[in-house]
């Protein structure tokens, strides 16, 4: 009790510390008062006026506003002053010109032609409001208001109010503010005006949504970010937005399960930090975390052959609702999000209602088709059978030459024994995807509404695989009282996945379809079942005699059914009160709640069932992410030179997971799929719940709008850690400077920014990792007690990631060409790992704090407009990322603690001194000169079965990069994205299976003659002259003595990731209808490989989204998709 009180006290102290921190920063205001008494000392010899003005700009807080054409080109001035006032200097400069000037309160000097003072006839007054991306209004001081064509101007006060004497009521006002779209406002007879400035949407790159939803100018950021527009992720018509991001973000590596529409992706920024934990980034939508728990998680300790992809959280976001996606690849950027931010964050901002131009309606409709991108290469000479002869009931293709000879085959018919070159391809159907959506946006000054409904209906490339999704989204932003804004969001979706295919398991379609004999007709295979006349039971038709290892793929598709329905609600209530112009407070509650209900119906006759009657499994789970936070913001221009942005907040994040699973354990009456018919039902449940409480603060101090200092601090209390260690504090600091605004640089350089930041992020662990949890299993005569096989550490400490990054941003020729370079370095230490221990300890695993994993690398972004004409525009953007990982230290006891029991294909290890993601596998035994040693009598290779002897490579790429070229000609736009992933390996179990079955092209050679194993020598050292039969050889190394080394593939590939052609119809075609715009886009994704070093499959394939990567077995082919997208605006 006393201990707990002390903790509460500590928490209070910390809050007080943060408040003091805020006050200290606030006091800077006192020192940073204005420049009223600026004195200039100049020595300018015969310079043009522009140069003179630039010099003054550099030496003083004054900025100039003028039309270039106004300045007399030939005029030269010579000015020598000492401690002169600004007026004095300017009078000297303009003495010989017809120019005059006005100095505004914000130190803006407006230069214009001389005009007569007595032109002034009226005084206009009004207010200017700033509208940010969210539609929220604010008022600021120092917004410039100028009468067009004159030097008459003023700035707004803190309430956004201004008053200006103008020539007459027909004058035009020019209102401008940094980061907002400058507008020209005709007075049109009015003398009182209310003006709204919108944030500059088309310069999205310049404004970035950062941690906690704080919008900031990009130039002030001290770390790397990348932002994609909503259209970048929605126009590609991908169901999962992360597919659409592929190839567009530097150092983002995506691996895909390819399990049909809406399937999961594994997303990694800047390499793997965690050995046994999740390496994926946080997903933040509208400022709050949503649940992205991987539902296809195969950890290195898992079993690669059993992974059903149940979809991830991020794939549920409706791409059409997205305003922008900001990627914070580094820990620095995400430090304020606290624990889990070490892997970076994906920040999604969704659309809000707008006002102006009445009700906005957008209707869009798209259709996409998809086909397998790549399939293995097959031989088409030898058919079903073994030993060179046809064999009825064989699942191999080591049979006779297919010459059309009549053969009584498995169907009971005599048919020609002929090649069926497309029997694999023909199994796959054309996948289709229809997406229809409507979005309505409306509002007035006080209230804006956005509503959308999207219907997605797809079928996969595997028969009977369907996907349906309905997304409803309502967003309401209301000014409920003066300065009080209420933001409501309700998002509901239903997602129904029918029979999502399952990679890598013998009881699912892929294994059989890929490996079936070359002489089988797909039309025969389609008859996948019969009714047994003797007992009226359902029997599977399968070509291999009993007992089979595999089954008819159509049976798998239609008789082993799996349906999963997700209902998800995401709600957000946010109340923001602008207390003063500078100070606001925001309270926010969000809920992400979803249930997944699945049922599996396996018909009796599925070969792998061990209980009679078929099997029925229902699984229900719920996930709840509940967040509450309170954020106080203080934004203030302390003086004309200093501005301050302070945020402080507290938050609570709660996560709950519950699962109930019931397995019927066979069925009394065959194929009656309901629990009442269960033979021996077993139910289990599991629960996980975590909570994190936090206090945090950040301060951004800007000087002269070109030097920025960032400080953040956060303390988390994490329920997953032992009580004595569950509180941890982590800070970050960053600095950025816009050099071109500090010193004079050649005119060509329009931006030169340098930045550096350091962050330290702590993290907890998963639920229930610190104490033993024995449980009971329904077995025996009333249960088996399952002892906990994990040795827990009741004294676990938080993980720590230390991250440093520095970068350079460059803009040339008025930012027509830009470059952004980042170098980063992170160390993750005290990692919470589950590692293997000697079993005689009584335990299989131990949870420890250990290790030091380093990731360092670079990121490079380039963009340019080589052609920027009126009709024709060409833009290029390039991204490049490179990451180098090294395990500097691991457990003190072991250099290479095993992470899993070895898989047949390969063993993924964490090895001290090497990069994480190394794979060891079985290999040929070789002599010292590298020749393969073969058995003295059989002539077959000797296999090194110990997987720790042969290092096959690492699954991570060396680097990744992408280039997007966009060409616009009048109303046409054509865009192409090519990306490359260089390096990394993947071991293909499919290749081993296909070789062993004699179906792959590689098995065709020397069928009838046999061959001597190339580059080999007998075990006794003599020359190898033993001829082996291809069947013996390939069955031996592909199955019975699997040689993983033989099936290692380079994962290097270059592909045409995306190509799109769009046309927006001109107004004269649309005519004076109510339609405001029509655009039509043809889009293709994942179109073809320009280079693919992997043989017969897509190397970006993953069996799941866990760390068990680089291994592939009967995975689903990735798909090429193409289609049309029609957008109508009303």
């Amino acid at each position, binding site marked *: 009790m006393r201990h707990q009180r002390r903790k509460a006290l500590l928490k209070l102290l910390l809050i007080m510390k943060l408040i003091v921190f805020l006050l200290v920063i606030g006091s800077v205001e006192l020192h940073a008062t204005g420049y009223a008494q600026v004195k200039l000392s100049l020595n300018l010899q015969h310079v043009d006026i522009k140069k003179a003005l630039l010099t003054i700009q550099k030496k003083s807080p004054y900025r100039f506003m003028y039309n270039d054409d106004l300045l007399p080109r030939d005029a030269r001035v010579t000015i020598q002053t000492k401690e002169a006032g600004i007026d004095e200097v300017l009078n000297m400069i303009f003495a010989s010109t017809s120019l005059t000037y006005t100095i505004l309160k914000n130190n803006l000097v407006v230069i214009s032609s001389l005009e007569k003072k007595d032109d002034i006839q009226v005084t206009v007054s009004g207010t200017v409001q700033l509208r940010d991306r969210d539609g929220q209004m604010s008022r600021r001081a120092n917004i410039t208001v100028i009468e067009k064509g004159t030097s008459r101007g003023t700035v707004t006060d803190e309430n956004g109010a201004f008053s200006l004497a103008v020539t007459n009521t027909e004058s035009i006002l020019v209102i401008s503010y940094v980061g907002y779209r400058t507008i020209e406002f005709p007075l049109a007879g009015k003398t009182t005006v209310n003006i709204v400035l919108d944030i500059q949407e088309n310069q999205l790159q310049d404004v970035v949504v950062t941690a906690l939803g704080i919008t900031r100018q990009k130039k002030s950021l001290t770390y790397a970010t990348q932002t994609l527009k909503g259209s970048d992720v929605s126009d590609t018509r991908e169901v999962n937005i992360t597919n659409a991001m592929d190839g567009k973000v530097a150092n983002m590596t995506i691996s895909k399960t390819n399990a049909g529409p809406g399937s999961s992706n594994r997303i990694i920024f800047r390499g793997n930090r965690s050995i046994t934990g999740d390496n994926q980034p946080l997903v933040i939508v509208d400022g709050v975390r949503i649940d992205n728990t991987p539902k296809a998680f195969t950890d290195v300790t898992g079993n690669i052959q059993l992974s059903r992809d149940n979809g991830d959280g991020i794939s549920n976001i409706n791409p059409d609702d997205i305003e922008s996606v900001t990627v914070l690849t580094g820990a620095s950027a995400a430090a304020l999000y606290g624990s889990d931010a070490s892997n970076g964050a994906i920040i999604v901002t969704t659309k809000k209602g707008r006002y102006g131009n009445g009700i906005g309606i957008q209707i869009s409709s798209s259709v996409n088709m998809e086909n397998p991108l790549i399939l293995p290469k097959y031989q088409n000479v030898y058919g079903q059978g073994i030993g060179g002869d046809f064999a009825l009931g064989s699942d191999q293709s080591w049979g006779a030459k297919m010459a059309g000879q009549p053969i009584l085959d498995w169907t009971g018919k005599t048919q020609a024994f002929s090649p069926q070159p497309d029997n694999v391809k023909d199994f796959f159907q054309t996948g289709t995807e229809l997406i229809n959506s409507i979005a309505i946006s409306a509002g007035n000054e006080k209230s804006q509404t956005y509503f959308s409904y999207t219907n997605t209906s797809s079928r996969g490339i595997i028969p009977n695989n369907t996907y349906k999704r309905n997304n409803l989204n309502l967003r309401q932003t209301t000014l409920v009282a003066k300065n009080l804004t209420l933001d409501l969001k309700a998002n509901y979706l239903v997602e129904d996945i029918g029979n999502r295919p399952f990679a890598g398991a013998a009881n699912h379609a892929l294994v059989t379809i890929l490996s079936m004999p070359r002489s089988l007709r797909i039309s025969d295979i389609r008859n996948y079942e019969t009714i047994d006349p003797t007992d009226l039971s359902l029997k599977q038709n399968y070509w291999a005699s009993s007992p089979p290892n595999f089954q008819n793929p159509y049976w798998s598709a239609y008789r082993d059914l799996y349906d999963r329905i997700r209902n998800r609600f995401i709600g957000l209530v946010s109340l923001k009160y602008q207390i003063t112009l500078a100070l606001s407070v925001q309270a926010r*509650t969000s809920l992400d709640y979803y249930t997944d209900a699945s049922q599996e119906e396996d018909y009796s006759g599925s070969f792998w069932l061990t209980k009679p009657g078929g099997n029925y499994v229902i699984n229900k789970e719920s996930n709840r992410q509940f967040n509450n936070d309170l954020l106080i913001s203080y934004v203030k221009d302390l003086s004309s030179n200093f501005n301050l942005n302070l945020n402080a907040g507290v938050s609570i994040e709660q996560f709950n997971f519950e699962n109930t699973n019931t397995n019927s354990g066979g069925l009394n009456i065959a194929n009656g799929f309901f629990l009442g018919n269960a033979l021996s039902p077993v139910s289990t449940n599991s*629960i996980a719940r975590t909570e994190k409480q936090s206090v945090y603060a950040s301060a951004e101090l800007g000087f002269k709008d070109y030097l920025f200092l960032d400080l953040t601090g956060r303390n988390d209390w994490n329920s997953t850690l032992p009580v004595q260690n569950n509180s941890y504090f982590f800070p970050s600091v960053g600095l950025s400077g816009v050099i071109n605004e500090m010193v004079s640089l050649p005119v060509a350089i329009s931006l030169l920014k340098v930045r550096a930041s350091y962050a330290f992020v702590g993290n907890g662990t998963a639920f229930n990792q610190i104490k033993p949890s024995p449980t009971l299993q329904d077995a*025996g005569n009333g249960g088996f007690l399952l002892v906990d096989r994990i040795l827990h550490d009741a004294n676990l400490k938080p993980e720590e990631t230390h991250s440093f990054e520095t970068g350079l941003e460059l803009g040339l020729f008025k930012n027509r060409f830009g470059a952004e370079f980042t170098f980063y370095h992170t160390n993750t230490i005290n990692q919470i790992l589950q590692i293997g221990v000697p079993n005689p300890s009584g335990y299989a695993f131990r949870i420890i704090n250990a290790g030091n994993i380093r990731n360092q690398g670079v990121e490079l972004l380039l963009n340019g407009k080589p052609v920027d004409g009126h009709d024709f525009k060409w833009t290029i953007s390039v991204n490049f990322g490179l990451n180098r990982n090294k395990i500097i230290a691991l457990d003190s006891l072991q250099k290479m603690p095993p992470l899993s029991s070895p898989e047949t294909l390969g063993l993924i290890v964490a090895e001290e001194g090497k990069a994480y993601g190394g794979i060891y596998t079985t290999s040929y035994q070789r002599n010292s000169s590298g020749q393969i040693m073969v058995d003295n009598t059989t002539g077959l290779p000797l296999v090194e079965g110990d997987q720790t002897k042969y290092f096959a490579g690492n699954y991570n790429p060396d680097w990744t990069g992408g280039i997007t070229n966009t060409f616009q000609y009048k109303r046409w736009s054509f865009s192409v994205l090519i990306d490359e992933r260089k390096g990394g390996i993947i071991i293909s179990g499919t290749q081993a299976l296909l070789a062993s079955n004699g179906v792959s092209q590689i098995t065709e050679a020397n069928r009838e003659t046999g061959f001597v194993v190339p580059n080999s020598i007998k075990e006794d050292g003599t020359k190898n002259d033993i001829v082996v039969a291809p069947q013996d050889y390939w069955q031996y190394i592909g199955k019975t003595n699997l040689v993983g080394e033989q099936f290692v593939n380079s994962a290097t590939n270059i592909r045409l990731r995306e190509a799109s052609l769009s046309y927006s119809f001109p107004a004269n075609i649309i005519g004076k209808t109510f339609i405001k715009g029509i655009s039509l886009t043809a889009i293709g994704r994942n179109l073809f490989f320009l280079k693919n070093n992997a043989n017969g499959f897509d190397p970006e394939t993953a069996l799941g989204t866990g760390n068990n990567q680089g291994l592939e077995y009967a995975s689903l082919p990735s798909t090429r998709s193409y289609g049309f997208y029609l957008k109508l605006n009303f």
Partner: protein
Amino acid sequence: MKLFFENRLPVRLMAAMIFFGLLIISSTGCTKKFDQLNTDPTSFSTLPPAALPKALARAQYEGVYGDPGGYELIHSLFTDLWSQFFADAGGSASDRYVINQDWIISQWNLTYTVNWPSLKLVIDGTEGISPAANAIAKIWKVYIFHQNSDFYGPIPYFQAGLGTLSIPYDSQESVYMDFFNTLDSAVTVLKNTDPAQTPFGTDDMIYHGDITQWIKFANSLRLRLALRVSEVDPATAKQQAETAVSGGVMLTNDDNAFVDVTSNPNSSNGLCDEAPWQNMRMSATMESYLKGYNDPRMQQYFSPADLDGQFHGLRNGLAPADVTSATVVGGPFDGAVNLSNINLVRWNPNTDGVTKLNVIYSAESYFLRAEGALNGWNMGGNAIDFYNQGITLSLQQWGITDNTAIQNYMNGTTTPAPLSDYLNSPAVANIPVKFATDPATQRQQILTQKWLALFPDGIEAWAEVRRTGFPVLYPVVHSDNPDVPTTDIIRRFTFVEYEYETNGKATQAAISLLGGPDKASTHVWWNK
């Protein structure tokens, strides 16, 4: 600063919002609940005493590798091939004496992270509370560890399961001596227990807590262990065997020990579940003996081949190419339709709730006593009677109850048959069933009949083949293990690689306890 106070509405609103925010946060935000929150409600945070019998049940079930996965990875893929009950028609390298580390780790893992921790929980939890329950758990401890020690020789034993991360190995001799002591004290405890007590009740999946049965079981196990050490420590062997027999060993088929898995389909008989799988086929050795002896158990142990309805075995140690040659009789490789599977009527997925898992049969005790009698020990009878009783019990156990058939078998003079397999294998041995007159042949006959009676317990059969060299087996056709020639049999499992990786020092030190290199050809202590 003036703004803050000039209007009272904002102040109130702000105060209300902060208050509301803090209210939400403080009502849910209290870290003192974290400990409770981080506790899994679907498991036991403190273990009730009633959970102990459930731990024994699991140790019994997994102790005989009852789970299909566990059964395959020790029985089917190793010991049942090396005892030559079966041969592998799938071409697995383990039939050629290769020790696949991915497979053997499963046995090691089950023993040390499941069975022993479960038993230790029971032993610690019953100490001083229920001496009988404590004694039964200790008897079972001997059962699981004697198999484990027989696999490797030295094993971690005295320091196992304590949570320390470097666990020394103990010599097989010291471990065996502890087995004898443990069984001795356990039997003493049970003999002093009221036989009406039924410790563990039905959670004891073998005898439902029947103390009398457990005494017989313990003595039979003790007799088995005594003969195991009979060559390296004859004095101990004699003394332990005579004590065991005088204390009462298993006598009738009613005493047979089975793990009864019939009550819950979720703990099934692993052998049943994997019987229809590819690999396990009748061995040529089995075929030669069973056919030569006209053994009525052939139809009980095996199914006729799909192809011709006859019984056909497969030689052990075939290379994959040989397997193809041996199994291609117009049928596909995978089906091995020309070979006899295990008896699919008794062992199939639908009988996994009917067919119990065998632990020890009473017949074995008679063969052990027969061998003891040959050694000149006081086994309470003579060798020929024990031999014939052993045969009788075994035949009866498999449903051959006709006395004439039993007598005919017992007096059979036919010898093992030569085979018409693709290698034209000659007869595996030349002894008949009828008990010979010379002790050397008698010993071979006793061990051959014990081997036949042990079916399908390949673990015990392999141990006895190693110790005695009987029955005579066909040499494996091919050995892929460079340390074990085809002329020898595999003598032990090498220490698991994982131990070298995780418990390296202790494993290195164990090599000196082994008394030879850590190879599959090195004999364990009792096999000297």
